[in-house]
């Protein structure tokens, strides 16, 4: 697995989010919730116990009125491509979270997870949520659960999967159509929904892909690059104050 490194693979699924276009409307996050059977509770204001895979951070430039500005930063799982291990995959004692070196997806398998939360401690992006309660839905709402993603149980960790079930379907479709499954492309639910099309998804190693081009844009940056986690989620912004919030002591 990880010992091999990932040099030989020519797929690295990644995402670019244009923060200048993001209006914080939340469509990506709700689409994600619907797609991935994310459970909810009557009170969701306790954000530290609220399960969200696509969390939308509100940033501000710390200035006084009227120079005050806000911006939104949607944060999926970064699917870190750090050498050898992602911060979370390194620490999981039971191999519940691993990185697929064929495509760079950092996956988390609920039936394997024992709920030790070590991965959450290791992740600086707070991309992971724990099921503090048994996930329950109002009876009627169980009808809208998707069979394509398994509902979780209490006591396990969950996080953004880049909608890998869509990837599986795209690959299966490719093998039916007789095309190369390794060339299969798909879009996660968030990117599909985004009203300003601020989210671009694809193979970062495919030079011709939009996502590869954008990731090399002069406006592109990643969060906490100094930690060498090598996220596969890039952000775009022209505004210096937003870019400065990407890493500590960036001025």
């Amino acid at each position: 697995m990880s010992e091999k490194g990932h040099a030989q693979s020519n797929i690295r699924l990644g995402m670019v989010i244009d923060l200048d276009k993001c209006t914080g409307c939340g469509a990506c996050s709700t689409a994600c919730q619907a797609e991935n059977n994310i459970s909810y509770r009557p009170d969701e204001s306790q954000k530290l116990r609220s399960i969200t895979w696509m969390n939308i951070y509100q940033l501000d430039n710390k200035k006084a009125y009227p120079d005050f500005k806000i911006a939104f930063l949607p944060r999926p799982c970064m699917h870190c491509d750090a050498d050898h291990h992602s911060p979370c995959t390194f620490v999981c004692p039971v191999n519940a979270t691993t990185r697929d070196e064929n495509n760079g997806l950092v996956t988390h398998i609920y039936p394997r997870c024992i709920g030790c939360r070590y991965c959450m401690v290791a992740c600086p992006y707070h991309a992971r949520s724990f099921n503090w309660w048994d996930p329950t839905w109002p009876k009627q709402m169980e009808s809208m659960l998707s069979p394509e993603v398994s509902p979780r149980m209490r006591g396990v960790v969950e996080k953004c999967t880049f909608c890998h079930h869509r990837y599986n379907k795209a690959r299966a479709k490719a093998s039916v159509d007789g095309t190369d499954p390794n060339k299969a492309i798909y879009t996660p639910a968030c990117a599909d929904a985004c009203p300003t099309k601020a989210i671009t998804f694809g193979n970062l190693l495919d030079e011709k892909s939009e996502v590869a081009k954008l990731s090399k844009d002069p406006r592109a940056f990643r969060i906490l690059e100094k930690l060498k986690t090598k996220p596969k989620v890039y952000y775009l912004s022209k505004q210096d104050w937003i870019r400065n919030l990407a890493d500590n002591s960036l001025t």
Partner: protein
Amino acid sequence: MQFAAGAVGGTLLTPLPWKLADDSAVWSQNWSWRPSPERGEITKVPSVCTLCAGGCGIQARIVNGHRAILIEGNPANPVNEGSVCALATSALQFLYAPYRVAQPLKQTKKRGDKTGFQAISWEQAQTELSKKLEEIRVEGPQSLACITSSRRSSMDDLWAQFLTAFGSPNLFKMPSQCDSSRTAAQLTTGNASPFAFDLENAGYVLSFGASLLDGCAASSRASGALRRWKKDRYPVKIVQVESRCSITASKADTFLPINPGTEAALAMGIAHLMVNGANYDAYFVKNNVFGFEDWTDANGKKRQGFKNLVASSAYSPEQVAKITGLEAAKIREVAKEFASQPKALAVWGTGRADISNNTYHELVFVALNALKGNLKPSGLIAVAPKVPLSDLLPQKDILSENASQHPRLDLAKAQSCPCPQNGLYGFLDAIASGPKYPIKLLMVHEANPAHCLPENKLFMTAAEKVATLVSFSSYMDDTALLSDYILPNHMALERFDDVIGVPGAPYGYYAVSSPILKPLLDTKHTGEVLMKLASTLGGTVASSIPWKSYEDFLKFRVEGIAKAKTGAIIDKPIDISSIKAGDPVTPNYSDGADLFKKLKAGTCWHDAPTGVTFDKTSSGKLELACQSIGKGTQATDDVIYLPHFSPLKPSGSESEWPLLLVGYSIPQVSCGYLANPPFMNKLVPDSVLMGNELFVDLNPQTAASLGITQGDLVMVKTTQGEASAKANVTPAARPGVLYIPRGMGHKAYDEYIENKGVNACNLMEVQLDPVSGMGTVWATRAQLRRV
């Protein structure tokens, strides 16, 4: 002991302990009390979303034909171009909401008592309702009234048809900015259709308080426009004029922080500089505008024109700076930019556009665009084109004789407004304060005035005076809870509906929303209930509404387009904003049936923009001097004809109420007929809601002067009411102004919604616009203290 040792040893060599350990782990992996979603064939069913007026194309994922699991955007729809908003992605949570009304209900106890509702059959419901209608019809049909929020749907016309045929003029709409926009369009262009903006093709956008990105109506279109503005090369400059550092303000290149409600003064100031600097489209103004120069009225009286009004020192940058709180230099700078940018567009709005605007202010913004020449046939502003749907069957003059005796209730109060429009507030006020005639039956359709009407206590008081309140809501909302009968409509995704035009869009648009599923509950399409009631009532009511199903009704309406042979179906992705006024659009449907079939399959109809024409005004030009305002009066003041800054003073004295309270909207909270769905609850920032406490935004300066710190429990008191909340000290707020998020504080629905925060509408003051008589809201005087 040996036995035990043997048993332990033996057991360890059998699968028993290992299998049990494994099985218990596997059991935990499936967790039997967790739902297991049914598997099967997944299909995509296209439709059109009618949760808001935006008209987005959607497609639903359905499992085994009976279970909807996801709403996605329809890439072939030109409005949303495959994307979809947070509310639409949560749409299924309304479909499967526990607070849906499963069958007709009748209140058997006191109104508002949740336990008093008794399930009744549709037959009983319809019989009892038609009996009441028959009685009213005999005693005076004007005593029937309806409030709906339906505006861009054939349902709206069906209600009008029903009430007209029945003999009542009392059909009212929930407030919307399109009413004031329509008033302004009518006064200046003679078209009774709201203004439309070519956002996508503008080269410079000056927005006067329009919450383009803070959850406005048609948010998908605004998002599409933003995407085009933020293009990499030569991005479009956005200037936002507003009092709060909103999302739109943050996304804008320039933010003009302004005293709340003074946007029109700034527009006048800019116009002043353009006129005095001769930096306006003089050719257009000279040839197409009436009332720019001084003019003579029908009585031969010489009147002042807009030019002289705006050029006066009252609108000098220095004066405007005093009113708005901006610097004069900044005003000069923006005026210069606006005047010199070739494709500059001024847009305006009232936050989420669910409140009507001050008519004079609407006129100011029209005037500013007129100076820019934007109302040219190929300009950036048009009026929304009419979709050539079949008109409803001609009426047999049922209403007319009654109407002269029993005018619409808001008009019956004989207010002196010259240009009366949809006067919901006037109507409610009339009922509350002893009407000319009683309202015996009030029907509320797709609206929740008990919650989301600013100054909602007016509705509460009025409702008490109404003998019977009937709700057609699909949900147990705040208004349904107060009703005597609930005749639940199908939920939007279970029924036929249509979308007539995209709010603020210059192109023609029509789409049919077809059901994605069979109705889940014992509900009925309100349109079909009306059809049933009409046929029971018989006579001319029955003959006016001859359709048996709503689908038939829509088919009938679509025939009109086919007869007009205009526009075309869109079934693959196109950039609709690239179609210019006058571009040929060739029909690609054979006849009405074909068109309906295609629309039913989730496509949409469109037509090229039509631009604005002025042939309906008395001068045949764009009238900046609105002659109809002064009609019949011997107005002495020339200003009443002209666009000008005319703030309505909020009640209360400044010394007693030192602060202003302004309601604001955020895209993460649904406000309006639909309550926030659980998915969107996760989006609500914890600076807006924490537990059940709502936060009121105030500037650090204001907070310091009041001795308030972040998170303090505070009491907000306005001239309208008081509420306890928490303080959110944020530089987003203008000093001296409190901002309260709208859409919270429901008193109905379920545990996911009920009692979360405070309803801003309880605290907001409504003032009637002197021109149109519609309720406008901008700020309420308030005080704040720490508890």
